[in-house]
């Protein structure tokens, strides 16, 4: 098609239609559309319903998996958990960000949501609850190196103990860490730690960042999600709890994570978001992208839509 033909064609497409018309009732179509959708929605809501699995709390976790809770709390004190070494926006950990060549958007945002895992997730809740006072005093009086050495040693000992059972840990120099973590677990079972961590943000705190990051640092919470096929490598982004449809429209976003060449990259999230951004931009600007804009002509599915029109030509 020459440029002249293309311009003429575009003019023709833009011109008001001068051919035959058919009767059309906009409001009637809207009313019927709303009616049909209403019947479908109400029927599906009544028959199929919707999922509602209860939240997991620190209390749930500490009760169901006390060893995992204590091991995770120890990691928060040692600074070895994912959150402790996450980088921006939570911590200042160097080299923890996802980058694309020289592009480091994660660092540019800064540490806007700072979290000190030892203080915010263990020491402050115990302080709020007035628990393990002696152990807290010992911890407070120790140097950073001493604290790290105690917590790291205890974490390694827990990993070696049968089933991670704190009662079966080999003797060692763990300082106040066993008492701090065991007390935190005991308080969590009562529900006190949930409230104590939330209270760090004030009475009207709607921010659950600390609780959710603490949950995610353990094995229990991700294990439950994996059991429901909700993790990233299980197409979890588009799955829902139970047998309900989730965000199936995110299939392409989820798809990239299933490819090892992308999913295994250390900067997989940044690559996938970048890819999806480019593809969305391409979709929006499809009319000016040669090749892509020609697909409807090359693959004439439009003849199905206008089959009556083409049949009569």
């Amino acid at each position, binding site marked *: 098609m020459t440029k002249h033909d293309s311009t003429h064609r575009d003019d023709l497409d833009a011109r008001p239609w001068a051919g035959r018309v058919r009767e059309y009732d906009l409001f009637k179509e809207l009313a019927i*559309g709303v009616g049909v959708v209403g019947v479908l929605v109400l029927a599906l809501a009544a028959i199929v319903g919707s999922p509602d699995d209860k939240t997991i709390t620190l209390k749930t976790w500490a009760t169901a998996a006390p060893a995992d809770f204590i091991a995770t709390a120890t990691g928060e004190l040692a600074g070895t958990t994912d959150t402790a070494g996450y980088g921006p926006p939570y911590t200042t950990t160097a080299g923890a960000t996802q980058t694309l060549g020289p592009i480091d958007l994660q660092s540019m945002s800064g540490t806007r949501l700072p979290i000190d895992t030892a203080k915010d997730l263990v020491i402050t809740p115990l302080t709020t609850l007035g628990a393990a006072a002696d152990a807290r005093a010992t911890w407070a009086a120790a140097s950073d190196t001493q604290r790290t050495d105690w917590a790291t040693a205890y974490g390694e000992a827990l990993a070696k103990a049968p089933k991670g059972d704190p009662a079966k840990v080999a003797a060692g120099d763990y300082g106040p860490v066993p008492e701090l973590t065991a007390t935190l677990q005991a308080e969590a079972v009562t529900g006190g730690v949930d409230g104590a961590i939330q209270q760090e943000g004030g009475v009207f705190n709607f921010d659950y960042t600390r609780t959710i990051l603490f949950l995610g640092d353990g094995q229990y919470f991700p294990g439950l999600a994996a059991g429901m096929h909700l993790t990233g490598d299980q197409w979890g982004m588009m799955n829902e709890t139970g047998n309900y449809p989730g965000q199936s429209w995110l299939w392409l976003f989820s798809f990239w994570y299933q490819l090892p060449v992308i999913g295994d990259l250390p900067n997989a999230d940044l690559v996938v*978001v970048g890819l999806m951004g480019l593809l969305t931009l391409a979709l929006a600007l499809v009319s000016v992208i040669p090749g892509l804009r020609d697909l409807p002509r090359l693959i004439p599915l439009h003849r199905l839509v206008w089959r009556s029109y083409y049949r009569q030509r």
Partner: protein
Amino acid sequence: MTAVTPGQERAAAPTATSAATATPTPTATATATPSPTATPTQPPAAEEDRTWTGRTRRWLLGKLPPDKLLPNTQPSYVASWIYVLGMGAIGSLLFIIASGVVLSFNGPTWYHVSALGHFVNSVHLWSVELFFFFMVVHLWGKFWMAAWRGKRVLTWITGVVSFAVSIVAGFTGYLVQTNFDSEWISFQAKDALNATGIGAWFNVTNFGQMFMWHILILPIGVLAIVAFHVVLVRVHGVVPPLEASETDAQLTHPDTTGE
């Protein structure tokens, strides 16, 4: 813009009163002549009105006259089920808004403890599922119809943008379910947002922030873009078939009623 003088402003009221009789009364004339330059005038005719309001009205009516805004005919080629999908998406959106408003009355945790609340939450969920179903099929249909032709590029772009904004709106909905699913989705989704720096400002684990985005900011965004999209559809009309002639006079056996 033409400035309105005080004399003209005063003249407007009596003139309007006298408009029914079309003959200004002496009183009206007297009150309308505070200065030699101010004379009683009729409101300017629509085509002469140079006020901002008048110009805007003229522009709007030119772009979207009533018969284009609320049409009762469509070109003969508009005869496929594919055309009802856009309306299906709008119908679903109405149910999303309505069920969302009902859920708003009692807050985000009501549906956990109330059978009625759970039903309304189910209506909300299924209208969202249908909304995306209709929207995606509508989008694919329009792609294969190359519906951006004939100066309809902005219509196409607003459609894609409304799809993208709807995805964010749906995503925040999943984040504020106040159940296990929302906990896990927020934990998982933070990484992609943090990697791009967005997470520092759009914190998916902050329930309060996500809740406000979901019930206020994003619905306004979706409704505004969808409304603009629909207006553009009305302004430009339905795209004709590829390789269509200027009219369908070349058809051998047209099966539609012409006017």
